[in-house]
């Protein structure tokens, strides 16, 4: 971990009608890392993603991407600066095929004007063909090429999650934020997602994932920050974070704090839920 982080949060706070969802949160995401954001339900993790992507405006603090403050930018402007995301409860476009979803994800890289694509000029048609080819390649990458022409509604939950990742990749972001990418998946499916994240990282993408799945975090994250009640408890390597007494307490309760590690691995998701 050297140099300035790609994304840096410093002293970020957000409250909803007197409830402090995030307070004085600072952490950085190193370029080319798979970073994890952990914490029990209600810790404020999704709020952090919504703050980074501009869906919510922070009350305090700064969020800086590659030296540029993101304050006051609309979500579409933040997206065009290279941040992509997925959602905790999958939000695919109803009535669109998998391929169409990923093509829509390529809006920022369409390489032609709306007017040219209205008139169907040769260069606009070539650009559209390129976008579709790239979308097919992305579907292949997440292992969904054979479902390219299925409607989102016809896919299983795990498949929908992979389409959502492909859609976010359509814009070729430099930073990808994943909100519980393996929620509702079994262990084998989760491992597939984890390996996909490593492939993407090795191809140059920086990733932040919010995750309950301790196994996934410890297997696949390079760096972890743990939140509880809107505050950062600790950050560091997955092993160091999981060994932290306050993390043990936040995740497994006081009584379980001394339980063996293999047992804590068995506790998979939403311990407080």
């Amino acid at each position, binding site marked *: 971990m050297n140099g300035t982080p790609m994304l840096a949060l410093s002293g970020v706070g957000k409250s909803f009608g007197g409830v402090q969802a995030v307070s004085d949160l600072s952490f950085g995401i190193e370029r080319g890392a798979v970073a994890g954001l952990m914490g029990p339900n209600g810790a404020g993790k999704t709020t952090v993603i919504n703050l980074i992507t501009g869906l919510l405006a922070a009350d305090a603090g700064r969020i800086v991407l590659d030296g540029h403050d993101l304050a006051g930018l609309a979500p579409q402007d933040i*997206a065009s600066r290279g941040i992509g995301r997925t959602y905790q409860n999958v939000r695919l476009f109803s009535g*669109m095929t998998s391929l169409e979803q990923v093509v829509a994800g390529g809006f920022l890289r369409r390489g032609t004007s709306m007017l040219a694509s209205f008139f169907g000029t040769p260069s606009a048609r070539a650009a559209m063909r390129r976008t579709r080819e790239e979308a097919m390649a992305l579907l292949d990458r997440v292992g969904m090429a054979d479902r390219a022409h299925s409607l989102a509604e016809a896919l299983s939950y795990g498949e929908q999650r992979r389409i959502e990742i492909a859609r976010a990749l359509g814009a070729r972001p430099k930073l990808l934020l994943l909100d519980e990418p393996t929620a509702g998946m079994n262990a084998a499916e989760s491992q597939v997602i984890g390996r996909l994240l490593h492939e993407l990282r090795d191809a140059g993408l920086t990733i932040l994932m919010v995750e309950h799945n301790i196994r996934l975090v410890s297997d696949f994250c390079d760096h972890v920050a743990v939140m509880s009640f809107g505050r950062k408890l600790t950050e560091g390597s997955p092993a160091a974070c999981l060994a932290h007494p306050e993390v043990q307490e936040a995740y497994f309760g006081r009584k379980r704090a001394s339980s063996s590690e293999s047992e804590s691995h068995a506790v998979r998701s939403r311990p407080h839920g």
Partner: protein
Amino acid sequence: MMQKLLDLWAAYESTLAFAAVNAFFALSTYAVMATGILSFATVAFAAVGGFLGAQLMGQFGLPLWLVLPASAAGGCVASLVVSFVFLRLESHWLALASLALILITRILVLNAPMLTGGVNGLSVPIEAPLWLLLGLLAVVALAFWRLSVSWYGIAARAVREDPAVAGSLGIAPRRVQRMAFAVSGALGGLGGVLLAMTLQFLSPETYYINISFTMIAAVVLGGSYHWMGAIVGALVFTALPQIMQALVPQVQDLARGVALLLIMILLPRGLVDPRAWRIRRALREARR
């Protein structure tokens, strides 16, 4: 019965003319609905286009090829002004505000006799030939087909389904919706002047709630997920009362309402439903 069918055939030309005019209004409503907005403001855009066009023809004797684009431009400008206010509103408030706009439009029309003829109305010197109505409709249909396959169409579908997600993909929802209002306004203005030329007389009641009912029903009936739905809906919804009047005049008034209810219950996504085509195609492929 035979005589009735012959009468129907004789009346087909005017039915077709009104169906074409209603198709412009339905497409104008569809244009904004395709980005997730329910708005009745088309009626106001039609009033702007209609009275502007009538005055340009009557007072200034401008030729048709200038009047038509001027009316479309008038509707477009009106829609951009309206969208500036409307797009700040939440969806159901926007729908309500657009209904209020229809009421306000009528008051303005009544109180600006210099421009609109006020209570006395305004006669329109030029009649729209049927070939012109159908020709223009064909051009507009072509434009909607191009829009639907263009990047604008992709962005519009994303905004309609989930504006927040569209934003996270770099699509600016408000900008797309403003463009939709511009298209809606131009079509509303064009439909307004074409209605004026079909009726050849304008009164304060010409551009009123009844049009908004017809156009919204046409879009719901025809299907609000494809531009063809608006055209099919306008044709069916204009022809149905005529056919019922010829065949069973006793239930003519009921027919439209019953048809609308049946379609809403049996085909909630309208007569033209691209999703249903896709599901059917997927099932066929799966069986193979």
